[in-house]
């Protein structure tokens, strides 16, 4: 008979029993959270495309902790703490998701691929038909980032970490990932996970904010018929090319993201059908899948349980709530200026969670008045939100790095 305890055979249980109490509780809690995310994704409360791979990754990675030679605990998924070239190359030969993490995630490539895919879905004609109103709403919907940055510093976060966390207020996942990689690489994992968790909540949570702040009779307002002329593909192309180059000239730090999103727009408007099919389907959904999976796998208890996570959770919800309120206040300003003809719900779509918030706006309005069509206005504000979020993040990255 060989001498082995059951705990040595079932290492997931052994490492659970053997770990510090807070890690043990954290692992069990994260496994349960993973189940909840899968369930909420399946029910359609959260974004299923992101939450189902993320939830299963989160639950599995916290179950599958084992002991390596030398008594070190870890997983066979990835090691986000591998820093030197030797460590990274070694881990790539052991951990199956390490190549995705090291070559696509930690350098922001996956954010750029998601942005490229989103670019192919953006019809900038909605923005070009009504640029002033769309941009005004988008500026208002950045209020969350404006308020959360100093709030984060007041709560004890260093300047870079507070600024990176504040970008959650822009409600743009790839932008949060990008900003945290640039400003707070040491805690970019919890910031990004918190950011994406909350972005998944906007579809379920924002309707409550809108219903609380906009009475039913205002939600039912029908937008007046507009006399805007159709914007041609050529005009959209010129806009995308010039804006991409100008913004990159102003903010080289965000040039990869600008190129990604506007390249998507250019591909769409140029009629490059094969590229369009590739980036709007395989690349966008492939990148979204691996983004969700890697985010879930990064939620291993010993990695994610940082004392700062609680602060990040508070700041994330504050940022998104204030951005929503800011967008709705912008909507109220336009409602007032237009003499009561503008539907203030459109303001929520300026929070640039493309296209979720635009859908939320139309859904809420349709519930009150099925013949009220606000989607073109909402998508204009939505696309403007992407642009203002990119500009704000780029300015923040540049300004926070300045001394003083």
């Amino acid at each position: 008979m060989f001498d082995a305890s059951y705990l040595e055979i079932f290492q997931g249980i052994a490492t659970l029993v053997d770990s510090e109490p807070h890690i043990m509780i954290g692992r069990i809690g994260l496994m349960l959270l993973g189940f909840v995310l899968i369930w909420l994704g399946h029910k359609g409360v959260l974004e299923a495309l992101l939450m189902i791979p993320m939830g299963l990754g989160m639950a599995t990675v916290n179950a599958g902790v084992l002991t390596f030679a030398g008594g070190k605990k870890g997983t066979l998924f990835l090691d986000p703490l591998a820093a030197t070239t030797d460590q990274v190359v070694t881990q790539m030969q052991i951990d199956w998701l390490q190549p995705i993490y090291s070559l696509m995630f930690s350098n922001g490539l996956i954010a750029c691929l998601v942005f490229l895919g989103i670019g192919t879905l953006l019809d900038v004609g909605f923005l070009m038909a009504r640029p002033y109103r769309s941009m005004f709403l988008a500026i208002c919907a950045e209020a969350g980032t404006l308020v959360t940055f100093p709030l984060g510093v007041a709560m004890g976060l260093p300047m870079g970490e507070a600024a990176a966390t504040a970008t959650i207020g822009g409600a743009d996942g790839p932008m949060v990932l990008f900003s945290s990689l640039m400003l707070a690489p040491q805690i970019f994992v919890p910031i990004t996970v918190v950011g994406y968790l909350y972005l998944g909540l906007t579809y379920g949570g924002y309707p409550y904010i809108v219903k609380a702040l906009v009475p039913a009779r205002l939600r039912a307002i029908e937008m007046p018929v507009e006399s805007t002329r159709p914007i041609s593909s050529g005009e959209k192309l010129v806009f995308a090319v010039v804006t991409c180059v100008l913004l990159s000239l102003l903010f080289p730090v965000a040039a990869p993201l600008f190129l990604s999103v506007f390249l998507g727009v250019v591909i769409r408007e140029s009629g490059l059908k094969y590229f369009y099919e590739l980036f709007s389907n395989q690349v966008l959904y492939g990148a979204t899948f691996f983004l969700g999976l890697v985010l879930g796998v990064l939620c291993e208890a010993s990695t994610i349980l940082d004392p700062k996570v609680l602060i990040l959770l508070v700041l994330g919800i504050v940022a998104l709530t204030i951005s929503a309120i800011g967008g709705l206040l912008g909507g109220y300003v336009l409602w007032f200026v237009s003499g009561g003809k503008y539907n203030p719900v459109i303001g929520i779509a300026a929070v640039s969670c493309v296209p979720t918030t635009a859908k939320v706006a139309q859904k809420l309005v349709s519930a009150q008045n099925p013949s009220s069509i606000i989607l073109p206005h909402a998508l204009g504000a939505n696309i403007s939100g992407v642009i203002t979020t990119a500009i704000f993040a780029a300015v923040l990255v540049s300004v926070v790095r300045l001394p003083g």
Partner: protein
Amino acid sequence: MPVESLVTVAIGKSLFSFGLMAVIAMLSAVFIHALVAGLGAVKRRAERRAAPLPVPAVATPKPCVAGIDPAVVAAIAAAVHATLGARHRIVYIGDTAQPSSWTAETRARQHGSHDPHREH
């Protein structure tokens, strides 16, 4: 540096960044407006040059929706009513072109992305 000073610096940086973002965003809006107006003027001028000589007016039945034959409108309205029911209204009728079909596909995807179990 004490926390109060750091918060003051953060407020300053946040306000500056927000202000700069707002200025650049509104300049972008001005640029978009100028671009749309400029390209629209060029397009109109090109259309005027290419316009055919006026022809004598011929009496034709008056279309009920911007240039569309009333019979076509009636047929589309009947089809929509039969398919979707009475709680819908027709907002726009127009020719489909290749970019429009892409837009329609994208819209369908945007509407349906929260319900991935259903075919759209």
